[in-house]
């Protein structure tokens, strides 16, 4: 699609708002529908769109597969790490009260925020990784 003008232009216009929307969904998860899963997928959709329009190679140059892989791991680590922090602070695993013992709701809020961030990163990275690995394959006869 490299030579199709309209999709190129439209996607250039769209990609940035998509990314922004992903972030909105991610952080608005506290107050309304939303959260890491959805945000991650939306974020990945932006990258997928870019790859569709500008080619897989171009996309891989921007979002390096190696980095994607690392992000998958880091997201999970962020999630589990948040739980471990409360463990080290003497609370049960994933008991976010630990993050702010004086103000339990705030602690919970912070904990869920971090966990959702981890989820968002992982989902986005996984989605991109899945797209990369499928898109790179040759066509069957």
């Amino acid at each position, binding site marked *: 699609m490299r030579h199709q003008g309209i999709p190129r232009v439209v996607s250039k216009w769209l990609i940035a708002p998509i990314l922004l929307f992903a972030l909105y969904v991610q952080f608005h998860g506290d*107050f309304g*529908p939303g959260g890491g*899963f959805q945000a991650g997928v939306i974020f990945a959709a932006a990258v997928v769109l870019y790859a569709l329009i500008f080619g897989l190679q171009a996309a891989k140059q921007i979002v390096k597969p190696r980095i994607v892989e690392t992000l998958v791991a880091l997201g999970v680590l962020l999630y589990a790490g948040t739980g471990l922090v409360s463990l080290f602070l003497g609370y049960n695993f994933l008991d976010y009260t630990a993050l702010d013992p004086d103000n339990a709701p705030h602690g919970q809020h912070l904990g869920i925020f971090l966990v959702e961030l981890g989820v968002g990163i992982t989902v986005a990275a996984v989605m991109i990784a*899945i797209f990369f*690995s*499928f898109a790179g*394959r*040759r066509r*069957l*006869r």
Partner: protein
Amino acid sequence: MISVGLFNYWACMILMMIGLYTAIARPNLVKKLIGLSIFQVSVFLLYISMGKVSGGTAPILGEGIDTYSNPLPHVLILTAIVVGIATLSLGLALVVRIGEAYDTIEEDEIIERDVVND
């Protein structure tokens, strides 16, 4: 109200049957996976239906709302959806590799090719 309630379950059953039928009747590996996915989706529907509290709304605190739907099935199904996606993508990845290795993704042909090789 009752018929609407039951409609969910009917849809769930029909989807389940479509899914299983596809998984059984289609030798094409991708179609099988799609069938399996449909089957799983029917189960998601089952869960979500049971979380519905009539007259309830989304379980987010708001002014003047006192009936909420049960959020737990949604949470469970969110997990199940993720698992479903993971299974589907893993399955498709396998199909891609099988396709590359056998030059076909029809299961009967694949088994035949293996038997010939034996």
